[in-house]
């Protein structure tokens, strides 16, 4: 009976019910997409870097594992010294340069041969490897996003590059240029940002890292195993990011809470006489509160369902427009977003429900 009463109350005011559901949907979608975007970008970036196939990466002292965020190039000759270490099979010096024109990305300046030794080589979907100083390789996602094909001219760092090949994504960056050309363009002669090191066997990585940290070799330099990168790329490890996410979640909850508060408050005022009738039938305050909270909860559940659908829809739209964007929607965060929305709904509906339960029955029955 309570279910019938609640359902019919919601259906009786379709516009108000729709607005309530929409607010919750937006709240849920906001949480899911904000978290999905941040974790998606981080996870996808980490996977691409792990996809290089190297075992160890050497960076300047104090460098961030967010590659491209620290720009302190090292002498490229370090590669020679690294190759002399025991168990080192190949070393690929790489110059990272941040590009914010036409998007946000990190461009890799590579030596094609050494990069091939570490990564096993690109999988070419069309075209060929870099041969000329102005050749550029673009991965398939970036090619789709930038509408590039083999033979096109691509302006980057105020230089016109020739698209030599389209490669399969997943090897660090989306855009690769010859390291020597990039060094000239940014004034970093014989410099590299990072050295990717491949060991003879993955089990030797610890020994090689220990060797690298010795005083005779690279004391103070940042030495990291690539296999740990995925676990490092979380919002809690990135300064400020968790605060940003929490702020966005708080904003989303506020939206939902306020809309539900307003919706239920106007509902209580509109149904003042109905509340009086229920009280005349013997309904006690907990009954009144329960009815209103359950009505809000049902509204919230519909909103959560709408929010999940909205999240997937927005994600599809974003990916269609920005193919390089990665939005990770996980069941865990869908559930969390739903619980956050439910919490906000119950809090938002509590005061109106309490007001309703406290209404004087006689005044309510004579309310117009």
């Amino acid at each position, binding site marked *: *009976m*309570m279910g*019938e*009463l609640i359902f*019919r*109350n919601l*259906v*009786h005011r379709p516009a108000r019910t729709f607005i309530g559901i929409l607010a919750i949907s937006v709240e849920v979608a906001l949480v899911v997409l904000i978290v999905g975007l941040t974790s998606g970008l981080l996870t996808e970036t980490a996977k691409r870097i792990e996809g290089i196939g190297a075992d160890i990466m050497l960076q300047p002292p104090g460098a961030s594992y967010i590659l491209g965020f620290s720009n302190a190039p090292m002498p490229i000759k370090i590669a020679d010294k690294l190759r002399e270490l025991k168990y080192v099979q190949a070393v690929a010096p790489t110059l990272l340069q941040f590009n914010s024109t036409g998007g946000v990305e990190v461009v890799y300046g590579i030596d094609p041969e050494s990069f091939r030794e570490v990564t096993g080589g690109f999988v070419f979907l069309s075209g060929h490897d870099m041969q000329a100083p102005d050749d550029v390789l673009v991965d398939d996602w970036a090619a789709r996003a930038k509408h590039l094909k083999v033979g096109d001219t691509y302006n980057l760092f105020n230089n016109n590059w020739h698209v030599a090949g389209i490669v399969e994504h997943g090897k660090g960056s989306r855009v690769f240029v010859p390291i020597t050309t990039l060094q000239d363009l940014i004034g970093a002669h014989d410099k590299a940002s990072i050295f990717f090191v491949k060991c003879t066997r993955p089990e030797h990585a610890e020994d090689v890292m220990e060797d690298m940290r010795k005083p005779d070799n690279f004391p103070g330099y940042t030495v990291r195993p690539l296999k740990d990168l995925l676990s490092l790329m979380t919002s809690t490890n990135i300064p400020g990011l968790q605060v940003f996410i929490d702020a966005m979640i708080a904003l989303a909850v506020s939206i939902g809470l306020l809309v539900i508060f307003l919706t239920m408050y106007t509902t209580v005022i509109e149904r003042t*006489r*109905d509340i*009086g*009738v*229920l*009280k*005349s*039938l*013997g*309904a*006690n*305050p907990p*009954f009144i509160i329960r009815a209103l909270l359950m009505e809000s909860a049902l509204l919230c559940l519909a909103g959560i369902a709408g929010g999940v659908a909205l999240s997937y829809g927005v994600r599809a739209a974003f990916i269609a427009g920005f193919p390089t964007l990665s939005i990770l929607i996980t069941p865990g965060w869908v559930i969390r977003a739903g619980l956050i929305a439910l919490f906000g709904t119950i809090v938002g509906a509590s005061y109106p429900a309490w007001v309703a339960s406290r209404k004087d*029955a*006689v005044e309510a*029955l004579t309310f117009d």
Partner: protein
Amino acid sequence: MGIAATIPAPQSALQSAAGQGSEKRSLEPILQTENLWKLYHAGKVEVPALRGVNFAVQPGESVAVMGPSGCGKSSLLYVIGGLAQASRGKVLVDGNDLTEMRDSERTKLRRSKIGFVFQRFNLLPTLTARGNIAIAQYIHGDGFDPHRFAVVTKMLGLEGRLAHKPSEMSGGEQQRVAIARAIINEPKILLADEPTGNLDTKNSEIVLEMLRRLNKDLGQTVVMITHNPEATVYFDRVVHMRDGVIVDGVPAD
């Protein structure tokens, strides 16, 4: 007489109250007020709606309370129904002193012993007739009783209208639904606040006849407030009020 004339004889389950009602007529009143006062506060001014009312109703009796607007009839009804709290005096309903009770206790008593019928019907607009009646059973706490539901709705001629919402029913039909809702849990007392106030003459007669039949055939104790002298012929006793006191024998305006 229309629908009222075709009301079938009540089922045995509901007739037991009739026998008990006539036996109790000589015993304790089912409803009694002693020096009842009800004061309303309009800013700093105290307005007495009831001034020392002494009122008693026997089990199975039907009483009409008459008086001009503002004489305190509705206040009396709401206080004896437990919807409002008395300022002074005593209110005894089936042996329970409402003035000694907390709001939760009065609510519980109202749920089990009192049925209300209002002038404006006060049906829940989002529920059908069936839902409006069933919700009274739900609140009562015994769940839906299909047998009792069928008996009451048949008695009030509502079988064909149960799927309709109040907006789809006439005033007379709505009031019959309200009566069904009020008696579905077999209350000790049925309190009616000008139940014919929003009805035309024909529907008024039907509703009043139904109340009379409930009283005569089922022994339902009925207290009705009205300002319509013609309605009083359906009741055993008429009580007149003026300015917050009972003035038996004084004609209404």
